[in-house]
């Protein structure tokens, strides 16, 4: 496997030529077509808080910068709103690429320090596996307990509860069909 070191403003980055092919295969997207027009970045509000813009992520994938991409904050800020892919003149569905990167990072247990996205997704899927549906009250409580941030949205939680929007009785019925899907699905979950 060909590897080398790139000196970028972000620091020294180890490149791995196989990475681009892996992301292209898993996402099914023509990554090599990205010519850095930045239409994706100009319409992407959520990743403005990230370390790279979507077009920079595309370029880093082309470089084969596996580590920099899979450890980036940007991928976890993508909400899959699909604005980027809609506007891409080369027809690259960038949200599919972002999903692939998240899947790869999650499978390897890689996440930037303080990023709770993978924990949230894991709890979400545990809810589905357990009872077939997501009980939003339980999901919120479990997430708050796991992150130790129980009080941040306390007032909000109370307002929702008072309006009957956070039912307390959890669903207990297991769904064998859903269990089987989890068993058949590869990878995490």
């Amino acid at each position, binding site marked *: 496997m060909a590897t080398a070191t790139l000196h970028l403003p972000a620091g020294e980055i180890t490149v791995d030529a196989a990475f681009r092919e892996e992301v292209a295969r898993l996402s099914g997207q023509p990554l090599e077509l990205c010519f850095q027009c930045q239409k994706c970045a100009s319409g992407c509000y959520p990743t403005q808080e990230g370390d790279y813009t979507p077009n920079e992520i595309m370029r880093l994938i082309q470089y084969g910068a596996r580590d920099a991409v899979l450890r980036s904050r940007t991928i976890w800020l993508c909400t899959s709103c699909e604005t980027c892919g809609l506007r891409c003149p080369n027809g690259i569905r960038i949200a599919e690429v972002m999903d692939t990167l998240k899947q790869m990072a999650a499978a390897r247990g890689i996440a930037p320090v303080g990023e709770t*996205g993978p924990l949230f997704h894991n709890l979400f899927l545990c809810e*589905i596996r357990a009872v077939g549906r997501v009980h939003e009250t339980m999901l919120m409580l479990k997430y708050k307990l796991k992150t130790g941030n129980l009080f941040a949205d306390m007032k909000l939680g109370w307002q929702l509860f008072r309006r009957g929007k956070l039912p307390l009785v959890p669903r207990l019925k297991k769904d064998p069909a859903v269990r089987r899907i989890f068993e058949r699905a590869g990878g995490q979950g």
Partner: protein
Amino acid sequence: MQYSYYPGCSLEATGVEYNLSTRAVAGALGLELVELPGWTCCGSSSAHAVNKDLALGLAAHNIALAQEQGRDLVVPCSACYTRLCKADHEMRHDPAEKARAERLAGFSYTGKIQIYSFLEIVKDRVGCDEVARAVRKPLTGLKVACYYGCLLVRPPEVRPFDRAEDPTSLDELAAALGAEPVPWCYKTTCCGAGLSLTRPEVVEQLVARLLAAAREAGADALVTACPLCQNNLEMRRPAQEGIPVFYFTELMGLAFGLEEAPGWLKKHLVDPFPLLQRFSLAG
């Protein structure tokens, strides 16, 4: 007309008023929504982010259930709608994906049922003329910014139901109810969706921008078709901001003069009654 109805997880909790108003409005229009027996989570917002098989399998399972019922499937939640449509699109057009979905969900895909958002049914199956005929209390003078969110019209090859960049279906519906839709540029700009719990500060910035733009356009309220949008716009709004955010089905219920409507609106975090009283739409 009878449809299978897939409420989705949010409509049993944070989006309960969307569920109640959808059912009531469907009844008023003579649409029969039969809740899909044994429906399970579609996998949104998490399955597609961590596991490709789960994303396809969980959605395909519900399509399998709908297939058994033999009726087209109606989905009010935009997030569920897009996940189910995506899985259906993949199975319909890609034999390898169809085989993968059939293996994961243990069924045989026929492609005989179609998936619709409730907005699509109202707009295309019922039609704005029919909706206008059902109006008893027109929403005259109420200026609304129609907020479609990301997922209702995207990606266009999966669901070519409205224009992906500048959709108009909610605007046309609002006009049919007597309201005045205002032109604005943020119809499909993301609200932050599932980041609400993990990155609330990011969602707060996105929501502040959207609400400020709606105000600037002269709107008295926003109209949505998605429980994630509605909740984010209310929960993560700036402290001083109090612009009401309605589901389109709630505005339909109000305009139809349905008795249950005030009960749905009481569940909002932003009290919409002062605004409605100004327009003599609530007691």
